[in-house]
């Protein structure tokens, strides 16, 4: 009996303990298990007021690595020759230069994924923006500005993607463009709309944004040109019109920008590239020593001291090296470089300063481009004189003691292409300019590395087209067909 009692007692104790433990467990568990992140902000609570929204918009800019597009638009073209030490494991974009890239290369994947990342971020903020409360009319205005800005960024990034990855580099309404993404559905596997459908969405975004931002020269929130302004949206429309061969719109939009933002003078021009002047800079992406991607990185590797890409002889020879202010702004010659096996010429445009090498802002829209767009539009509209006038104006702002030239229908075309080549060098336009006009990429023999003999990339070659990245094709079969040859 005694034993039985003890056992009973113990069993009761055990039961009690068990129940006690269970209760303790059940009570404390849910609370204990709900650990909130301390180093990050949960997406459900990140946007609570206008200031939070503004941080979200700044985040979009922070992740816009336009350098990837800049590289894609410059390296496969005829602006560069490859640095002798840019090879092997420490190299950069060699395959892109060699017209031998693979669709798995980062040089091909990065622009695609980065642009869509920025678009996702913009869409995230757009999805939250209407629910964020406002406490004043000032807040409402700010909110409208931010929303317009995000739509503008979304349009801009999509257009960047279109330039690089569209099926047909020359405008073709029926040809496949790239997906236009306006949602944040992580499971979406979009297919490619036709150019017509793509531009419908894009133009809608641009117009909604432009309606709010007007013709402001500076972004109304930041008060400067490091964020999209009304003028930047006009510049974007001018560029889009150029690519869509809508010459009337290109002319009118470029004119609007030109009238609001004068060209930099010969004196101002070098200062732009030293980070000292904002003349004619309609929109630029700011780079600081906290930026992980910097435009100079395309051409020069700071940690290893390697020149990735040097200017091509073909380009250098086009300038009046004495009178053209662009030559000394964009290039430098250091004979000492040859001692370490490098070429003596370097791309100086984004070299930064001592101690801050490669740190320079990324130019996105400049007035010079608007003159060139308008010149091309006028030429296409049959106004050779007007086109010549724009070319002369631009040259006069770049070349000391420039004497005006007169052009005919044949020479104006060459003059515009040549001026675009010289003025917009390394701003990521050249490859697209050749492609949108159906021209071959032709390099000088002297610009080829040893062992290479191929000077011409023609529209019949697969490398004339930039493939949809392999990662996209594998994850999203709907994206097919890939671009010609791929």
């Amino acid at each position, binding site marked *: 009996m005694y034993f039985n009692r003890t056992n009973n007692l113990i069993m009761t104790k055990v039961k009690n303990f068990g129940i006690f433990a269970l209760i*303790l467990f059940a009570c404390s568990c849910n609370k*204990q298990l709900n650990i909130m992140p301390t180093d*990050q902000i*949960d997406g459900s609570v990140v946007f609570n007021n206008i200031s939070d929204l503004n941080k979200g918009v700044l*985040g979009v800019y922070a992740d816009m690595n336009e350098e990837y597009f800049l590289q894609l638009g410059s390296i496969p073209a005829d602006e560069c020759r490859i640095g002798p030490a840019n090879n*092997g494991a420490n190299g950069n974009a060699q395959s892109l230069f060699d017209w031998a890239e693979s669709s798995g290369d980062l040089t091909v994947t990065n622009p695609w994924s980065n642009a869509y990342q920025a678009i996702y971020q913009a869409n995230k903020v757009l999805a939250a923006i209407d629910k964020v409360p406002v406490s004043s009319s000032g807040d409402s205005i700010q909110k409208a500005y931010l929303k317009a800005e995000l739509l503008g960024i979304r349009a801009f990034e999509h257009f960047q993607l279109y330039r690089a990855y569209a099926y047909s580099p020359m405008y073709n309404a029926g040809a496949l463009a790239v997906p236009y993404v306006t949602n944040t559905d992580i*499971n979406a596997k979009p297919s490619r709309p036709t150019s017509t459908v793509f531009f419908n969405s894009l133009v809608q975004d641009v117009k909604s944004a432009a309606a709010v931002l007007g013709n402001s020269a500076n972004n109304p929130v930041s008060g400067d040109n490091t964020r999209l302004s009304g003028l930047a949206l006009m510049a974007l429309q001018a560029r889009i019109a150029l690519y869509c061969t809508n010459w009337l719109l290109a002319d009118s939009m470029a004119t609007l920008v030109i009238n609001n933002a004068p060209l930099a003078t010969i004196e101002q021009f070098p200062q732009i590239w030293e980070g000292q002047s904002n003349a004619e800079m309609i929109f630029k992406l700011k780079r600081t020593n906290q930026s992980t991607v910097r435009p100079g990185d395309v051409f020069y590797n*700071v940690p290893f001291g390697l020149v990735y890409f040097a200017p091509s002889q073909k380009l250098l020879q086009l300038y009046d090296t004495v009178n053209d202010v662009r030559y000394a702004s964009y290039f430098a010659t250091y004979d000492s470089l040859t001692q370490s096996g490098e070429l003596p010429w370097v791309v100086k445009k984004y070299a930064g300063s001592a101690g801050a090498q490669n740190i320079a802002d990324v130019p996105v829209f400049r007035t010079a481009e608007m003159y060139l767009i308008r010149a091309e539009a006028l030429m296409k509209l049959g106004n050779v004189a007007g086109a010549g006038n724009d070319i002369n104006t631009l040259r006069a702002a770049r070349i000391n003691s420039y004497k005006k030239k007169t052009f005919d229908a044949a020479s104006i075309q060459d003059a515009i292409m040549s001026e675009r080549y010289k003025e917009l060098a390394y701003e990521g336009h050249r490859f697209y300019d050749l492609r949108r006009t159906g021209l071959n990429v032709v390099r000088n023999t002297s610009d080829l590395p040893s062992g290479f003999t191929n000077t011409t990339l023609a529209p019949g070659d697969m490398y004339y087209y930039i493939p949809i990245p392999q990662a996209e094709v594998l994850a999203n079969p709907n994206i097919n067909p890939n671009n010609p040859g791929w």
Partner: protein
Amino acid sequence: MINCRSIALSLLLLVLPAMLKAADKMLHGKVKEKQTGHAVEGVFITVKEVPGAGAMSDSLGAFEFSVPDTALTLNISGINYKPIQVMVKAGDNNVSIELSAEGHQMNEVVVTGYTKQTRNKTTGSISSVSMSSIENSPVGSLDVMLQGQVPGIYVGTPTGQPGEAGRVTLRGLGSINGDTNPLYILDGVPIAPYSYAALNPDDFESVTVLKDAASTGQYGSRGANGVIVITSKKGKPNSDGKTHVSFKTQMGVSEVNASHVNLMNTDQALAYQDVLKNPALPGWEYAADNPANQVSATAAAHAAHELDSIKKINTNWTKVLLHNAPTQSYDLNLDGGKGNTAFYISGQYLNQQGIALNSGLKRYSLNTKIENTSGRLKSTLTLGLATATINFIQDEGVATSGATVGGGGISSLNPIASIYYAMPYTTPTSTPGPGNFGADALSIYNNSLRQDKQFKSIASLNESYTITDNLSLNLTMGYDYQTDQFTQYFTPDSYLGMQQANGQQGSYQDSLSHRFAYVITGGLRYDKQWGKNELEANLLTEEDRTIGGAFGYTGYGINGQLYNTPAGITQGTQTNNFIPVLSGNTAPNNILLSEIALLRYSFQEKYTLTGSLREDGSSQAPVANRYKTFYSVGGGWNVMQEDFMKHNKIFSYLRVRGSYGLTGNAGGFMADAYSPDFGYRNLYVPTNYNGLNAVVPVTPGNPNYNWEVSHQSDLGAEAGFLKGRVRTELDLYNRLTTGLFLNQNTSLTTGFPFISDNAGTIRNRGVEIMLQGDVIKNKALTLTLGANLAYNQNTVMSLGGQSEIFTDQATMNLPGYALGTFYAVRFAGVDPKTGAPLYLDKNGNVTSVYNVANAVPMKGKTYDPPWKGGVTLSLKYKRFDVSVLVSLIRGMYRMSYPYFYSHSADPNNQQYNQSADMLAVWQKVGDKSPFAGAGYTSYLTSQDIISSDYIKLRNVNISYNVPLRDKAMRYVSSLQVFANGQNLLTIMKWQGFDPEDANDIAQYEYPMPRIFTGGVKIVF
């Protein structure tokens, strides 16, 4: 328990009445095996007090020898038996000795996690690691020593960096997203994986590997990858009441083993360059057949002179950038106790320098264990403190898990890469600069530091209170605490220092991280025997919490005289570009709460049934899936106990067992590619644009994120033959992992490359065989041979609707194939007409165009080896002890970057030295060569996916017990000298330093050294 029993036996013998005085007597005795009663042959009986006296038992287990008739202590040791001490009182002439079998015999007590049992009463697949082959191995990280020891375990050692942890898998890869490491439990405390450099393996008493559900089910959500249970050494109260002091010292050298590295020497390189005809390379620039040198006699003479002076240089960069490095260690152990208290104290100093300059491991460790029994309360306190200083080479990280990471950067920052890159005609004294790889590497060695100073403390306190004979209350509390101080500098005026991004004047980085993980386990244990029945039940509740944090900075503008201190940093201003970079976080931060019920029922020694039920709740799972229940059931049948086996002459033991259960891989939450603690949330992190505060999303979030679980069944048999001289074990298992943690590839247009998700199934099934036999067993010589072999078939059954998931550029996962199957464009040789590389397209047609779209999966080529095995040899001859461990791997492949870059005539890679194989490069029409001619772009193809199979003589240990004279015996009770060789010989196809690695891609990993050591162990 064995120890307790032997102590009890000694005590019992002590109590026997002592009568007669000292005079020589003949002592007779018989040695029997405790469990079977069989006579045991070949057991040494020595007398502690009388050096030289002793004998060995004969085939009947009998022995006799002459000794003084006083109280004596007999030391009894036999192979595969637990050594014991037996007291003989004056007057006793006859002594009966019972030995308990050790090793793979049935009554060995195995620590199975929360409980311990005799092997007879376990139902799971449990392997004990032999500590003898670990004892003298000079390896800094414990996991690395497990390879080849236990069937079914694979340890991929990523690099030869001293102290580097390996990738351990048990029974194949069961997870796509990385965490495939087993759970490590040291004295009841889970310890962090990948961080063993500060642990001294000499302090371990037992290492038990739990493989199936019956044994790992108790760990529930953390049991899916198997569990390695370690108990640390404890003290034993000695009969004489004295404290035993033992001292061990070991010295040796780590050697460079470059026998499979076949790079060109100067003559070969120049001859090869003559073929390439690249004017930037001296072999063509100064070649006599170069038309540029034939323009004039002076030009020809100049070229000949230049070529001649270059030919005089022939630098072997392997010898310059690697060296033979010393290793030394000192161990001091004290153990003893009195009455109800026992203690163990050990201290160690290890200094192992690496074969790469400026690398190595230095460790100081102190471990103590105190046990006390007072009435109903038993307390055990274990406290370990250690510091380890690890010096790394540049670009050599601390390897973490997964297929895509590992040390050995493909960049000339990494000195190991420079061994391959540097041209033999460049000199170590030349000026560093772009492309001067050898001199650059030396400059990096001399002007930089990469150091991790670890402080680690693992402690546990166990309190066990006996409430009644059947019921006890148990409480275990413990922690694993680690801090890492990481320091890196580049001197300001060095080649690399002048290229530091901020300011170009060197840098100094210092960061401190800490991780504190504690566990509290408490509950009741009920143990009842009635009649032939035995019941054991445990009801436990557990809290497992991990918190941590880190902060650090990198400063710039370093003062050249103060480069290894933060004092040398220049303060950042708006204008000087020296603004320091700051970093910090408060991770990890997670908690696991559990309720555990364990049940065992045994009928006689014959049948045992076990069951476990565990509910785990994790902060790393989203609210909807926070809790998960895990379970296991197991059964064991000891066939020998059946009446019908009574008269069998074949088996000395025979047991079959089976189990099934559900376990989880909670560690997989930590391996989440987006966020280790909050993989299910959509998270934003701060960043800045134009100096202003901004936020960016970093994870897409997935509210349906869930647990990854394994359903494992196991069937095993253990049998002994010829009186236990032959021991075998066979296991068949089938493990189905479902709800895989995987990166569900998303369209990049969504803004993210993938989403953390649970989908798909992987099956691992296989067979494990262990065979061990005492081939020779007589008085003078015992030779035991062992072999273990495991075959694992890994198949991805489904990927939740996806047809393929590519993990990196080398491997992909797709249904019907093994996890981590290589995929590549197939290389189809070289066109003899043009020297152009040829490929196969997707349909198998030869094409000269390389397009990654033509990459195909390569069935049977995976980086986790299906075949793993080990061969052990243990030989005892008189006073000599020899143990040998051979491990082998079959069916493993890796994509080799060193091979790719050293077999490429591509102009992009002509600046790199090449393998001597490349002398056979295509040169002219009609050449049949496997290597494409100069001028063609090289791409990674099937050619670069190379078999990593090996047979490796991993460890040889020879020791000798020095006979001691009487005088010496007064001070020293034993003296042992030993020699140890590690990683001595490898048979392999691999070209390079070593085929072993933790992942699928071979880069320029720190080479594995060959280590020779010798030492002395003295026991006082």
